[in-house]
């Protein structure tokens, strides 16, 4: 069969070079040349916004923290660490805060960073339509910023506020007025040019769905980064991330507890830390208006079992009982914990004559949530509550949740990291607040949040926030599940992890501190 044989040869000829190329390339270079000066970190999706004025998602904030700098940070233990600020002085009456900037800080284009840039940033961020203004408002008035001189900014507060310092510092990254001064609308997801800041790296290329590529900012006030290139590789599939860590295709990524075991033989170290996160089961209040049913549901659940199923071992999580994460100094244990009590759940249901079916939504791409949902379904069934599961796209889930009573589900799994100051949690539980996914409204809680914000005495604050936690627990719209630890797998060739410092949300406080062996 000569013609056939020839055709096969032709076919092989076409495949052949591919094989050869594959093997040859593998023999000569396991990695391209500039890989030796590149730190590649895997992220699970595109940042939803690269605009520092309104970004609020994990990858948007992580990217912002690489390119821009804040005035200061509030550390996990509540201490304030200055960044662009040289000093921060709250006034004695609590009505203003004066910030002096470090001298000689420059933007990555060499222009000096001044008080005008700070005022420009805070003024735009306080515009409600720009989408991230809540923390800069006290009651119905915004915090205003004024330049005292080239390096001094005074923040004026409409009322004395204990949370002001934390709220001023949290998640606000200073943007340059000389670049973005002409922008009239800061509500979009991207600015033009894409990014220019005073952080350790400069964003040089963004391929949507593929990667963000950064180059060292030699002018960084914290000292030029040791590694010239930084890459955020976008890899949505968690299993691909694991394999890529094993092969060295990426140097770092956040991994799940079950993947930690798989990575045992790989050249990576695991760094675990408590994120101050609260993973929860949320109830959309108007969809489940019956308090007895909500309480029955909560009594049906066994937190410990849910957590062990999804996070394998207590080394990777801590049970949560309140809207504040277990490590938060204001978190109270004196509240209704809803420890599992199936009998009580049944009694509540029977008394109300209920035989309920509830729909629980979760993010399809989140393996831990899928497991939690499966367990919750089983525990609900044991108490006589039928729970239907609905796996949705993460973005779609939050779009649907905003519809409140019209959402196509009653319960959902979620999580948040809101930091130390308890006022930040008002974003979730105050009536009509921007992240109140529960459509929850309790005037008592609203009033307590108002009091807590302006109360300067710490002991009295603790009482107020204790009352808030008890009130919300009593309303049974929010079932805290756990503080899940973040496990960062970092290739052993990368040094300086301790200096870069692990922090929630942003993963690392200062990305300039890494070194390559």
């Amino acid at each position, binding site marked *: 069969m000569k013609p056939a044989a020839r055709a096969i040869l032709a076919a092989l000829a076409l495949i052949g070079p591919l094989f050869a190329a594959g093997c040859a390339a593998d023999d000569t270079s396991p990695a391209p040349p500039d890989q030796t000066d590149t730190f590649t970190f895997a992220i699970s999706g595109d940042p939803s916004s690269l605009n520092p004025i309104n970004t609020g998602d994990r990858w948007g904030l992580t990217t912002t923290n690489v390119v821009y700098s804040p005035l200061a940070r509030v550390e996990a233990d509540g201490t304030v660490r200055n960044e662009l600020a040289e000093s921060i002085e709250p006034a004695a009456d609590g009505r203003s805060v004066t910030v002096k900037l470090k001298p000689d800080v420059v933007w990555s284009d060499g222009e000096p960073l001044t008080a005008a840039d700070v005022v420009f940033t805070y003024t735009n961020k306080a515009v409600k339509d720009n989408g991230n203004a809540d923390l800069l408002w006290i009651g119905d008035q915004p915090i205003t910023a004024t330049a005292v001189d080239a390096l001094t900014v005074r923040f004026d507060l409409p009322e004395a506020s204990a949370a002001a310092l934390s709220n001023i510092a949290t998640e606000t990254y200073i943007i340059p007025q000389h670049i973005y001064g002409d922008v009239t609308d800061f509500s979009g*997801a991207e600015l033009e040019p894409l990014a220019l800041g005073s952080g350790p790296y400069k964003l040089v290329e963004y391929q949507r769905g593929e990667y963000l590529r950064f180059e060292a900012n030699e002018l960084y006030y914290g000292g030029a980064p040791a590694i010239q290139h930084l890459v955020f590789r976008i890899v949505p599939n968690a299993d691909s991330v694991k394999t890529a860590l094993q092969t060295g*295709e990426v140097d770092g990524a956040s991994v799940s507890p079950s993947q930690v075991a798989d990575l045992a033989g790989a050249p990576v170290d695991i760094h675990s830390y408590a994120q101050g996160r609260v993973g929860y089961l949320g109830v959309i209040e108007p969809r489940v208006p019956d308090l007895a049913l909500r309480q029955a549901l909560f009594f049906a659940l066994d937190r410990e079992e849910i957590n062990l199923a999804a996070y394998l071992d207590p080394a990777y999580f801590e049970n949560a009982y309140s809207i504040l994460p277990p490590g938060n100094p204001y978190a109270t244990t004196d509240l209704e914990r809803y420890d599992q009590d199936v009998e009580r759940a049944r009694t509540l249901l029977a008394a109300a004559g209920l035989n309920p079916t509830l729909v629980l939504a979760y993010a399809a791409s989140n393996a831990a949530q899928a497991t939690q949902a499966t367990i919750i379904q089983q525990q609900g069934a044991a108490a006589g509550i039928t729970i239907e599961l609905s796996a949705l*796209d993460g973005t779609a889930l939050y779009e649907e949740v905003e519809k409140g009573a019209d959402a196509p589900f009653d319960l959902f799994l979620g999580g948040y990291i809101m930091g130390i100051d308890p006022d930040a949690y008002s974003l979730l539980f105050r009536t009509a607040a921007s992240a109140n996914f529960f459509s929850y409204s309790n005037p008592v809680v609203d009033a307590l949040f108002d009091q807590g914000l302006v109360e300067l005495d710490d002991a009295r604050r603790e009482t107020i926030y204790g009352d808030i936690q008890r009130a919300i627990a009593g309303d049974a719209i929010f079932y805290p599940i756990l503080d899940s630890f973040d496990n960062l797998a970092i290739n052993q060739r990368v040094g300086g992890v301790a200096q870069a410092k692990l922090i929630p949300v942003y993963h690392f406080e200062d990305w300039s501190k890494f070194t390559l062996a």
Partner: protein
Amino acid sequence: MLVYVARRLAQVVPLLAVVTLAVFFALRLAPYDFVDSITTPNMTAEHVAIVRSRYGLDDPAWLQYLRWLGRVVQGDLGYSLASQHSIAADLAQRLPNTIVLVLPAYLTALILAIALGLVAAARHGRPLDRLIDTIGAVGIAMPPFWFALLLIYLFGYFLGLFPIIGMHTVGDRGLPDLLRHLFLPYLVLVVAFFPDLTRYVRSSAISQLDEDYVTVQRAFGASDAQLFRRHVSRNVLLPVVTQIGLALPMLVTGAVITETVFSWPGVGTYFLQGARALDYPVILAVLLLSATLVMVGNLLADVLYVVVDPRVRLGKTAT
């Protein structure tokens, strides 16, 4: 010939009109307004009104349809709700990536299919034929993503020979790097494409063997080899050429799942991402693009068929 093409075109155009109409009205039924994709919360009501009238959204539906059609013809597919990017620009960036993956895989599968199909036909009923048939049967029954998982396990993890994410190592746009990334998804697609094609070639070749001219040639003492070289392969290959037209739409959506498994930045992953986030403009743009390609591909297949086999023309005119 020209008359035939013209008549076929006359059939495609109304069909395209129906598809675009359906897509357009699906767009209007969608729970968002086209304007939402280009306005921002900061615009005043007056500004939004100006934008609305600029895009003619207060005009009657038929006029809007014609305008929308005009924009689509000019390559303006609207904006993504999620990213507010121009969909046409995004597609222009991703389409080449998909073609780079699908085209070589399809051509390889085609060549492989021709070779295997002819061999099987020549060895009709003998063990080699059965072997090829069985391989094809397994190939057809195998979910492509499952095969992809096996390859990832074997080559990506166990042997560590090939990268399994994306198209390039970041910062390396070189050809060797691209080929290394290409290999595994390419292999998955070849295995997904070739069984059907092989069967097509094999059964065409076998039916050729039953034709009168083969019997006549045999009677004149032609050997099997001569037969295949001179007659059968030619007569089989001509209709195979027409298959290429039918494969046209695969260049866009032929690798949705394979692209997903390997995080390949092509049209498939773009579409799936859009579909999951309910990004209607993106969904509709991909629907429109692929429907158009199917129809153009069918037209191409028919025309090619007429070109290689003039008898068809006579047959068609008779009806």
